[in-house]
Protein backbone atom coordinates (compact mmCIF):
# COMPACT_ATOMS: atom_id res chain seq x y z
CA UNK A 1 0.00 0.00 0.00
CA UNK A 2 2.97 2.31 0.36
CA UNK A 3 4.24 4.09 -2.68
CA UNK A 4 7.91 4.52 -3.11
CA UNK A 5 9.68 7.29 -1.20
CA UNK A 6 11.77 9.41 -3.61
CA UNK A 7 14.68 11.67 -2.85
CA UNK A 8 12.83 14.73 -4.18
CA UNK A 9 9.81 14.12 -1.89
CA UNK A 10 9.05 16.63 0.84
CA UNK A 11 7.38 15.44 4.02
CA UNK A 12 5.94 17.06 7.08
CA UNK A 13 4.17 15.72 10.14
CA UNK A 14 0.64 14.56 9.48
CA UNK A 15 -2.11 16.95 10.44
CA UNK A 16 -2.80 16.97 14.18
CA UNK A 17 0.41 15.14 15.05
CA UNK A 18 2.77 16.65 17.54
CA UNK A 19 6.43 15.78 17.86
CA UNK A 20 8.41 16.63 20.96
CA UNK A 21 11.37 15.75 23.09
CA UNK A 22 10.40 14.04 26.34
CA UNK A 23 12.93 14.37 29.12
CA UNK A 24 11.30 11.56 31.14
CA UNK A 25 11.63 9.21 28.16
CA UNK A 26 14.98 10.52 27.10
CA UNK A 27 13.67 10.49 23.57
CA UNK A 28 11.31 11.92 20.99
CA UNK A 29 7.63 11.11 20.97
CA UNK A 30 4.84 11.51 18.44
CA UNK A 31 1.51 12.45 19.92
CA UNK A 32 -1.87 12.23 18.25
CA UNK A 33 -5.51 11.78 19.23
CA UNK A 34 -5.93 8.40 20.93
CA UNK A 35 -2.28 7.53 21.03
CA UNK A 36 1.42 8.13 21.18
CA UNK A 37 4.57 6.55 19.88
CA UNK A 38 8.03 6.75 21.30
CA UNK A 39 10.59 6.99 18.55
CA UNK A 40 14.00 5.48 18.88
CA UNK A 41 16.96 7.78 18.48
CA UNK A 42 17.42 7.36 14.77
CA UNK A 43 13.75 7.69 13.93
CA UNK A 44 13.61 10.82 16.07
CA UNK A 45 16.51 12.35 14.14
CA UNK A 46 14.67 11.76 10.87
CA UNK A 47 11.24 13.02 11.96
CA UNK A 48 12.80 16.10 13.54
CA UNK A 49 14.01 17.19 10.11
CA UNK A 50 10.67 16.81 8.36
CA UNK A 51 9.81 20.48 8.20
CA UNK A 52 7.71 20.49 5.06
CA UNK A 53 10.49 22.22 3.11
CA UNK A 54 13.56 19.97 2.96
CA UNK A 55 13.60 17.13 0.48
CA UNK A 56 14.36 13.58 1.52
CA UNK A 57 17.65 13.88 -0.36
CA UNK A 58 18.64 16.95 1.66
CA UNK A 59 17.76 15.18 4.90
CA UNK A 60 19.86 12.18 3.93
CA UNK A 61 22.82 14.50 3.28
CA UNK A 62 22.31 16.25 6.59
CA UNK A 63 22.18 13.01 8.54
CA UNK A 64 25.22 11.63 6.76
CA UNK A 65 27.11 14.69 7.89
CA UNK A 66 25.77 14.50 11.44
CA UNK A 67 26.48 10.78 11.77
CA UNK A 68 29.45 10.05 9.51
CA UNK A 69 30.10 6.70 11.20
CA UNK A 70 26.62 5.31 10.67
CA UNK A 71 26.58 2.57 8.07
CA UNK A 72 23.66 2.00 5.71
CA UNK A 73 22.17 5.25 6.90
CA UNK A 74 20.41 5.99 3.63
CA UNK A 75 18.54 2.67 3.63
CA UNK A 76 17.59 3.16 7.27
CA UNK A 77 16.16 6.59 6.54
CA UNK A 78 14.11 5.39 3.60
CA UNK A 79 12.81 2.44 5.64
CA UNK A 80 11.87 4.74 8.48
CA UNK A 81 10.04 7.14 6.17
CA UNK A 82 8.17 4.30 4.56
CA UNK A 83 7.04 3.01 7.96
CA UNK A 84 6.03 6.48 9.13
CA UNK A 85 4.11 7.09 5.90
CA UNK A 86 2.33 3.73 6.10
CA UNK A 87 1.24 4.57 9.62
CA UNK A 88 0.08 8.06 8.55
CA UNK A 89 2.47 9.79 10.95
CA UNK A 90 3.81 11.92 8.11
CA UNK A 91 2.40 13.24 4.86
CA UNK A 92 3.77 14.54 1.58
CA UNK A 93 3.77 18.29 1.47
CA UNK A 94 4.52 18.73 -2.21
CA UNK A 95 5.04 16.33 -5.04
CA UNK A 96 8.12 17.12 -7.03
Amino acid at each position, binding site marked *: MSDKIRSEDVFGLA*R*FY*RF*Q*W*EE*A*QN*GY*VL*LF*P*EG*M*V*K*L*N*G*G*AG*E*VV*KRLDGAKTVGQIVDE*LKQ*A*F*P*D*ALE*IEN*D*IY*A*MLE*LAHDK*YWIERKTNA
Partner: protein
Amino acid sequence: MTNTGSNAKPMPSADATVKLIPKPFWLLAEVTYRCPLHCAFCYNPTDYVEHTQNELSTEQWISVLREARKMGALQLGISGGEPLLRDDIEEIVAEAGRLGYYSNLITSGVGLTEKRLAEFKRGGLDHIQLSMHDITKEINNFITDTNTFDLKKKVAGMIKDYGYPMVLNVVIHRYNIEHLGEILEMADAIGADYVELANTQYYGWSLLNRSQLMPTREQLVKAEAVTNEFRARVGSRMKIYFVVPDYYADRPKKCMNGWGEVFMIVTADGTVLPCHSARSLPNMEFPNIRNGASLEWTWNESPAFTKYRGDDWMKEPCRSCPEKEKDLGGCRCQTFLLTGDAEGADPVCSLSPHHDIILQAIEDAKNPLLASQPILFRNDKNSKLIAEGALKELVAPFHSLP
Protein backbone atom coordinates in the same frame (compact mmCIF):
# COMPACT_ATOMS: atom_id res chain seq x y z
CA MET B 1 18.75 18.98 24.99
CA THR B 2 19.14 16.68 21.99
CA ASN B 3 21.99 14.48 20.96
CA THR B 4 22.34 15.74 17.43
CA GLY B 5 24.88 18.01 15.86
CA SER B 6 28.55 17.92 15.31
CA ASN B 7 29.54 14.89 17.35
CA ALA B 8 30.19 11.81 15.30
CA LYS B 9 28.19 9.37 17.39
CA PRO B 10 26.89 6.54 15.26
CA MET B 11 23.24 7.08 14.48
CA PRO B 12 21.05 4.49 16.17
CA SER B 13 19.02 2.27 13.91
CA ALA B 14 16.07 4.10 12.41
CA ASP B 15 14.02 1.07 11.54
CA ALA B 16 11.64 0.69 14.46
CA THR B 17 9.95 2.15 17.47
CA VAL B 18 10.80 1.08 20.99
CA LYS B 19 8.71 0.07 23.97
CA LEU B 20 7.62 2.66 26.51
CA ILE B 21 9.08 2.63 29.99
CA PRO B 22 6.29 2.11 32.60
CA LYS B 23 5.34 5.54 33.92
CA PRO B 24 2.02 7.28 34.49
CA PHE B 25 1.83 8.37 30.86
CA TRP B 26 -1.85 9.06 30.86
CA LEU B 27 -3.26 11.32 33.46
CA LEU B 28 -7.02 11.37 33.50
CA ALA B 29 -8.45 14.32 35.37
CA GLU B 30 -12.06 13.55 36.22
CA VAL B 31 -12.62 17.13 37.27
CA THR B 32 -16.28 16.80 38.23
CA TYR B 33 -18.96 14.13 38.51
CA ARG B 34 -21.66 16.66 37.77
CA CYS B 35 -23.18 16.17 34.34
CA PRO B 36 -26.07 17.67 32.39
CA LEU B 37 -26.53 14.36 30.56
CA HIS B 38 -28.00 11.27 32.19
CA CYS B 39 -26.58 8.49 30.02
CA ALA B 40 -27.78 5.00 30.84
CA PHE B 41 -24.33 3.57 30.00
CA CYS B 42 -22.22 5.92 32.12
CA TYR B 43 -19.33 4.15 33.86
CA ASN B 44 -19.16 6.67 36.71
CA PRO B 45 -19.85 5.21 40.15
CA THR B 46 -23.58 4.88 40.81
CA ASP B 47 -23.14 6.68 44.13
CA TYR B 48 -21.33 9.59 42.46
CA VAL B 49 -23.44 12.13 44.37
CA GLU B 50 -21.25 11.25 47.34
CA HIS B 51 -18.28 12.65 45.40
CA THR B 52 -19.77 15.82 43.93
CA GLN B 53 -19.02 17.81 47.06
CA ASN B 54 -15.48 18.94 47.79
CA GLU B 55 -14.28 19.15 44.21
CA LEU B 56 -10.62 20.05 43.96
CA SER B 57 -9.89 23.74 43.50
CA THR B 58 -8.20 25.24 40.45
CA GLU B 59 -4.94 25.52 42.44
CA GLN B 60 -5.13 21.87 43.45
CA TRP B 61 -5.63 20.79 39.85
CA ILE B 62 -2.71 22.90 38.73
CA SER B 63 -0.49 21.30 41.32
CA VAL B 64 -1.70 17.83 40.22
CA LEU B 65 -0.76 18.69 36.63
CA ARG B 66 2.68 19.90 37.65
CA GLU B 67 3.49 16.93 39.83
CA ALA B 68 2.28 14.35 37.32
CA ARG B 69 4.18 16.01 34.49
CA LYS B 70 7.39 15.76 36.52
CA MET B 71 6.74 12.05 36.88
CA GLY B 72 6.53 11.69 33.10
CA ALA B 73 2.80 12.10 32.43
CA LEU B 74 2.30 13.23 28.87
CA GLN B 75 -1.24 12.56 27.74
CA LEU B 76 -3.85 14.47 29.68
CA GLY B 77 -7.55 13.71 29.48
CA ILE B 78 -9.87 16.26 31.04
CA SER B 79 -13.05 14.40 31.72
CA GLY B 80 -15.90 13.99 34.18
CA GLY B 81 -18.95 14.11 34.42
CA GLU B 82 -19.03 17.06 32.09
CA PRO B 83 -15.80 19.03 32.58
CA LEU B 84 -17.31 22.16 31.02
CA LEU B 85 -19.54 22.55 34.07
CA ARG B 86 -16.44 23.95 35.77
CA ASP B 87 -15.60 27.50 34.79
CA ASP B 88 -11.85 27.05 35.29
CA ILE B 89 -11.19 24.57 32.47
CA GLU B 90 -9.56 27.41 30.52
CA GLU B 91 -7.02 27.83 33.32
CA ILE B 92 -6.40 24.11 33.60
CA VAL B 93 -5.92 23.86 29.83
CA ALA B 94 -3.50 26.79 29.78
CA GLU B 95 -1.39 25.22 32.52
CA ALA B 96 -1.39 21.89 30.66
CA GLY B 97 -0.19 23.76 27.57
CA ARG B 98 2.63 25.45 29.48
CA LEU B 99 3.73 22.11 30.92
CA GLY B 100 3.87 20.42 27.51
CA TYR B 101 1.02 17.94 27.96
CA TYR B 102 -0.80 16.59 24.95
CA SER B 103 -4.22 17.49 26.20
CA ASN B 104 -7.67 16.27 25.35
CA LEU B 105 -11.02 17.58 26.50
CA ILE B 106 -13.58 14.77 26.73
CA THR B 107 -16.99 16.36 26.52
CA SER B 108 -20.65 16.00 25.66
CA GLY B 109 -20.42 19.43 24.06
CA VAL B 110 -22.89 20.94 26.50
CA GLY B 111 -21.39 24.24 27.63
CA LEU B 112 -18.97 24.60 24.73
CA THR B 113 -19.13 28.12 23.31
CA GLU B 114 -17.09 30.01 20.70
CA LYS B 115 -15.57 32.06 23.49
CA ARG B 116 -14.42 29.00 25.42
CA LEU B 117 -13.11 27.32 22.26
CA ALA B 118 -11.02 30.39 21.48
CA GLU B 119 -9.57 30.26 24.99
CA PHE B 120 -8.82 26.54 24.70
CA LYS B 121 -7.06 27.15 21.41
CA ARG B 122 -5.02 29.94 22.94
CA GLY B 123 -4.18 27.79 25.95
CA GLY B 124 -2.86 24.98 23.76
CA LEU B 125 -5.57 22.33 24.07
CA ASP B 126 -4.66 19.67 21.48
CA HIS B 127 -7.98 18.04 20.81
CA ILE B 128 -11.55 17.67 21.83
CA GLN B 129 -13.34 14.36 21.98
CA LEU B 130 -17.04 14.82 21.47
CA SER B 131 -19.54 12.15 22.42
CA MET B 132 -22.19 11.35 19.82
CA HIS B 133 -24.97 8.86 20.36
CA ASP B 134 -27.00 8.25 17.27
CA ILE B 135 -28.16 9.60 13.96
CA THR B 136 -31.66 9.87 15.25
CA LYS B 137 -32.80 12.59 17.57
CA GLU B 138 -35.03 10.06 19.28
CA ILE B 139 -32.28 7.64 20.34
CA ASN B 140 -29.83 10.43 21.20
CA ASN B 141 -32.34 12.09 23.44
CA PHE B 142 -33.61 8.83 24.89
CA ILE B 143 -30.29 7.26 25.88
CA THR B 144 -28.88 10.51 27.31
CA ASP B 145 -32.26 11.43 28.81
CA THR B 146 -31.79 14.97 27.49
CA ASN B 147 -32.63 17.10 24.48
CA THR B 148 -29.11 17.47 23.09
CA PHE B 149 -29.21 16.18 19.52
CA ASP B 150 -29.17 19.52 17.68
CA LEU B 151 -26.65 20.97 20.09
CA LYS B 152 -24.17 18.18 19.38
CA LYS B 153 -24.32 18.78 15.64
CA LYS B 154 -23.76 22.49 16.15
CA VAL B 155 -20.84 21.93 18.52
CA ALA B 156 -19.21 19.50 16.08
CA GLY B 157 -19.18 22.25 13.47
CA MET B 158 -17.65 24.73 15.90
CA ILE B 159 -14.85 22.33 16.86
CA LYS B 160 -14.01 21.86 13.20
CA ASP B 161 -14.08 25.61 12.54
CA TYR B 162 -11.44 26.14 15.20
CA GLY B 163 -9.07 23.81 13.38
CA TYR B 164 -9.35 20.97 15.85
CA PRO B 165 -9.26 17.38 14.73
CA MET B 166 -12.78 16.03 14.90
CA VAL B 167 -12.67 13.14 17.34
CA LEU B 168 -15.99 11.46 17.97
CA ASN B 169 -16.72 8.90 20.61
CA VAL B 170 -19.80 6.79 20.11
CA VAL B 171 -20.77 4.40 22.87
CA ILE B 172 -22.41 1.39 21.24
CA HIS B 173 -25.36 -0.46 22.74
CA ARG B 174 -28.49 -2.22 21.64
CA TYR B 175 -30.31 1.00 20.79
CA ASN B 176 -27.79 2.31 18.25
CA ILE B 177 -25.83 -0.73 17.07
CA GLU B 178 -28.18 -1.28 14.13
CA HIS B 179 -27.53 2.29 12.97
CA LEU B 180 -23.76 1.98 12.88
CA GLY B 181 -23.49 2.41 9.11
CA GLU B 182 -25.54 5.61 9.27
CA ILE B 183 -23.61 6.83 12.31
CA LEU B 184 -20.36 6.43 10.37
CA GLU B 185 -21.87 8.25 7.37
CA MET B 186 -22.84 11.10 9.67
CA ALA B 187 -19.33 11.16 11.17
CA ASP B 188 -17.86 11.38 7.69
CA ALA B 189 -20.30 14.09 6.66
CA ILE B 190 -19.33 16.31 9.58
CA GLY B 191 -15.66 15.72 8.77
CA ALA B 192 -14.64 13.38 11.58
CA ASP B 193 -10.94 12.53 11.59
CA TYR B 194 -11.14 9.91 14.33
CA VAL B 195 -14.11 7.87 15.45
CA GLU B 196 -14.06 5.64 18.45
CA LEU B 197 -16.83 3.07 18.46
CA ALA B 198 -16.77 2.05 22.08
CA ASN B 199 -18.91 -0.93 22.83
CA THR B 200 -20.43 -0.47 26.25
CA GLN B 201 -18.36 -1.93 29.07
CA TYR B 202 -20.40 -2.91 32.05
CA TYR B 203 -19.40 -0.81 35.04
CA GLY B 204 -21.28 1.78 37.05
CA TRP B 205 -24.65 2.65 35.55
CA SER B 206 -24.22 0.43 32.53
CA LEU B 207 -23.82 -2.61 34.77
CA LEU B 208 -27.17 -1.88 36.38
CA ASN B 209 -28.66 -1.49 32.88
CA ARG B 210 -26.79 -4.41 31.34
CA SER B 211 -29.79 -6.50 30.29
CA GLN B 212 -31.30 -3.48 28.56
CA LEU B 213 -28.12 -2.31 26.80
CA MET B 214 -26.27 -5.42 25.66
CA PRO B 215 -26.54 -6.19 21.97
CA THR B 216 -26.72 -9.78 20.72
CA ARG B 217 -23.71 -11.55 19.27
CA GLU B 218 -25.35 -11.39 15.83
CA GLN B 219 -25.73 -7.62 16.11
CA LEU B 220 -22.12 -7.30 17.12
CA VAL B 221 -20.80 -9.41 14.25
CA LYS B 222 -22.82 -7.33 11.82
CA ALA B 223 -21.60 -4.09 13.37
CA GLU B 224 -18.01 -5.16 12.99
CA ALA B 225 -18.56 -6.08 9.34
CA VAL B 226 -20.23 -2.71 8.68
CA THR B 227 -17.28 -0.97 10.32
CA ASN B 228 -14.73 -2.88 8.26
CA GLU B 229 -16.56 -2.13 5.02
CA PHE B 230 -16.70 1.52 5.88
CA ARG B 231 -13.03 1.57 6.83
CA ALA B 232 -12.04 0.08 3.51
CA ARG B 233 -14.13 2.69 1.70
CA VAL B 234 -12.88 5.86 3.44
CA GLY B 235 -9.25 4.79 3.77
CA SER B 236 -7.00 7.08 5.76
CA ARG B 237 -9.42 10.00 5.71
CA MET B 238 -11.07 8.78 8.89
CA LYS B 239 -9.52 6.52 11.49
CA ILE B 240 -11.98 4.22 13.16
CA TYR B 241 -11.30 2.39 16.41
CA PHE B 242 -13.68 -0.43 17.23
CA VAL B 243 -13.51 -1.31 20.91
CA VAL B 244 -14.55 -4.95 21.18
CA PRO B 245 -16.95 -5.72 24.04
CA ASP B 246 -15.28 -8.19 26.36
CA TYR B 247 -18.45 -10.14 27.17
CA TYR B 248 -18.31 -11.60 23.68
CA ALA B 249 -14.59 -12.38 23.75
CA ASP B 250 -12.98 -15.63 24.93
CA ARG B 251 -10.21 -13.84 26.75
CA PRO B 252 -10.41 -10.77 28.94
CA LYS B 253 -9.07 -7.34 28.06
CA LYS B 254 -5.74 -6.18 29.45
CA CYS B 255 -7.56 -3.76 31.67
CA MET B 256 -6.03 -0.25 31.80
CA ASN B 257 -3.03 -1.85 30.08
CA GLY B 258 -2.08 -3.17 33.50
CA TRP B 259 -2.79 -1.95 37.01
CA GLY B 260 -0.62 1.07 37.77
CA GLU B 261 1.32 0.64 34.52
CA VAL B 262 0.22 3.56 32.37
CA PHE B 263 -2.92 5.25 33.72
CA MET B 264 -3.39 7.44 36.72
CA ILE B 265 -6.78 8.92 37.44
CA VAL B 266 -7.37 11.83 39.76
CA THR B 267 -11.06 12.11 40.55
CA ALA B 268 -13.15 15.18 41.31
CA ASP B 269 -12.64 14.89 45.06
CA GLY B 270 -8.90 14.21 44.85
CA THR B 271 -8.92 10.42 45.16
CA VAL B 272 -6.20 8.88 43.02
CA LEU B 273 -7.18 5.66 41.23
CA PRO B 274 -5.49 3.19 38.88
CA CYS B 275 -8.78 2.71 37.02
CA HIS B 276 -12.23 4.29 36.86
CA SER B 277 -14.06 1.68 38.89
CA ALA B 278 -11.38 0.84 41.45
CA ARG B 279 -13.57 2.18 44.26
CA SER B 280 -15.72 -0.93 43.89
CA LEU B 281 -12.88 -3.15 45.18
CA PRO B 282 -12.94 -4.30 48.81
CA ASN B 283 -10.34 -3.49 51.49
CA MET B 284 -8.61 -0.85 49.44
CA GLU B 285 -7.69 2.59 50.55
CA PHE B 286 -6.98 4.97 47.72
CA PRO B 287 -4.78 7.94 48.49
CA ASN B 288 -6.36 11.37 48.27
CA ILE B 289 -4.32 14.44 47.45
CA ARG B 290 -6.46 16.47 49.86
CA ASN B 291 -4.98 14.42 52.66
CA GLY B 292 -1.53 15.37 51.50
CA ALA B 293 -0.76 12.23 49.48
CA SER B 294 1.88 12.96 46.84
CA LEU B 295 1.32 11.52 43.39
CA GLU B 296 4.88 10.22 43.40
CA TRP B 297 4.27 8.15 46.54
CA THR B 298 0.82 7.14 45.37
CA TRP B 299 2.10 5.82 42.05
CA ASN B 300 5.34 4.25 43.21
CA GLU B 301 4.65 3.00 46.70
CA SER B 302 1.06 3.19 47.91
CA PRO B 303 -0.46 -0.19 48.78
CA ALA B 304 -3.38 0.57 46.45
CA PHE B 305 -1.20 1.07 43.36
CA THR B 306 1.22 -1.76 44.08
CA LYS B 307 -1.40 -4.35 45.03
CA TYR B 308 -2.20 -5.59 41.52
CA ARG B 309 0.83 -4.28 39.66
CA GLY B 310 2.58 -7.06 37.76
CA ASP B 311 1.37 -10.62 38.38
CA ASP B 312 2.51 -11.62 41.88
CA TRP B 313 -1.07 -11.45 43.12
CA MET B 314 -2.37 -14.01 40.62
CA LYS B 315 -4.00 -17.30 41.49
CA GLU B 316 -4.89 -20.21 39.27
CA PRO B 317 -5.98 -20.51 36.53
CA CYS B 318 -4.10 -17.28 35.71
CA ARG B 319 -0.81 -17.95 37.48
CA SER B 320 0.28 -20.79 35.20
CA CYS B 321 -1.56 -19.52 32.12
CA PRO B 322 0.67 -19.07 29.07
CA GLU B 323 -1.40 -16.02 28.12
CA LYS B 324 -1.13 -14.22 31.46
CA GLU B 325 1.19 -11.50 30.16
CA LYS B 326 -1.23 -10.77 27.36
CA ASP B 327 -4.21 -9.85 29.52
CA LEU B 328 -2.88 -9.88 33.10
CA GLY B 329 -5.96 -11.81 34.15
CA GLY B 330 -8.35 -9.11 32.94
CA CYS B 331 -10.14 -6.57 35.08
CA ARG B 332 -9.94 -6.68 38.89
CA CYS B 333 -13.08 -4.59 39.32
CA GLN B 334 -15.19 -6.62 36.94
CA THR B 335 -13.94 -9.83 38.56
CA PHE B 336 -14.87 -8.66 42.03
CA LEU B 337 -18.20 -7.11 41.06
CA LEU B 338 -19.31 -10.30 39.35
CA THR B 339 -17.62 -13.08 41.36
CA GLY B 340 -16.78 -11.63 44.78
CA ASP B 341 -13.09 -12.55 44.44
CA ALA B 342 -10.87 -9.69 43.29
CA GLU B 343 -7.92 -11.98 42.66
CA GLY B 344 -9.62 -14.54 40.45
CA ALA B 345 -9.62 -14.75 36.69
CA ASP B 346 -11.88 -12.27 34.94
CA PRO B 347 -15.13 -14.22 34.36
CA VAL B 348 -15.03 -13.09 30.73
CA CYS B 349 -12.28 -15.68 30.28
CA SER B 350 -13.57 -19.05 29.18
CA LEU B 351 -11.00 -20.60 31.59
CA SER B 352 -12.57 -18.87 34.60
CA PRO B 353 -14.60 -21.16 36.85
CA HIS B 354 -17.17 -18.34 36.91
CA HIS B 355 -17.52 -17.92 33.15
CA ASP B 356 -21.15 -19.04 33.43
CA ILE B 357 -21.95 -15.62 34.95
CA ILE B 358 -21.08 -13.98 31.63
CA LEU B 359 -22.97 -16.56 29.61
CA GLN B 360 -25.98 -15.98 31.85
CA ALA B 361 -25.73 -12.20 31.36
CA ILE B 362 -25.76 -12.74 27.60
CA GLU B 363 -28.84 -14.96 27.98
CA ASP B 364 -30.52 -12.39 30.24
CA ALA B 365 -30.07 -9.71 27.60
CA LYS B 366 -32.12 -11.91 25.26
CA ASN B 367 -34.84 -12.41 27.84
CA PRO B 368 -37.66 -10.06 26.80
CA LEU B 369 -38.86 -9.75 30.37
CA LEU B 370 -35.50 -8.52 31.69
CA ALA B 371 -34.66 -6.53 28.59
CA SER B 372 -37.87 -4.55 28.85
CA GLN B 373 -37.30 -3.46 32.46
CA PRO B 374 -37.09 0.32 32.78
CA ILE B 375 -33.63 1.81 32.36
CA LEU B 376 -32.14 3.49 35.40
CA PHE B 377 -30.73 6.77 34.11
CA ARG B 378 -27.68 8.38 35.64
CA ASN B 379 -28.98 11.32 37.60
CA ASP B 380 -28.68 12.83 41.05
CA LYS B 381 -32.01 11.48 42.22
CA ASN B 382 -31.18 7.89 41.32
CA SER B 383 -27.65 8.23 42.63
CA LYS B 384 -28.97 9.46 45.98
CA LEU B 385 -31.38 6.54 46.15
CA ILE B 386 -28.54 4.10 45.52
CA ALA B 387 -26.22 5.80 47.99
CA GLU B 388 -28.94 5.64 50.65
CA GLY B 389 -29.33 1.91 50.07
CA ALA B 390 -32.63 1.98 48.22
CA LEU B 391 -32.92 0.08 44.91
CA LYS B 392 -31.35 -2.89 46.69
CA GLU B 393 -32.78 -5.39 44.23
CA LEU B 394 -30.89 -3.73 41.35
CA VAL B 395 -27.58 -3.83 43.16
CA ALA B 396 -28.07 -7.24 44.80
CA PRO B 397 -26.58 -9.36 41.96
CA PHE B 398 -23.21 -7.65 42.39
CA HIS B 399 -20.61 -8.06 45.12
CA SER B 400 -20.19 -4.35 45.65
CA LEU B 401 -21.77 -1.15 44.45
CA PRO B 402 -21.10 -0.76 40.72
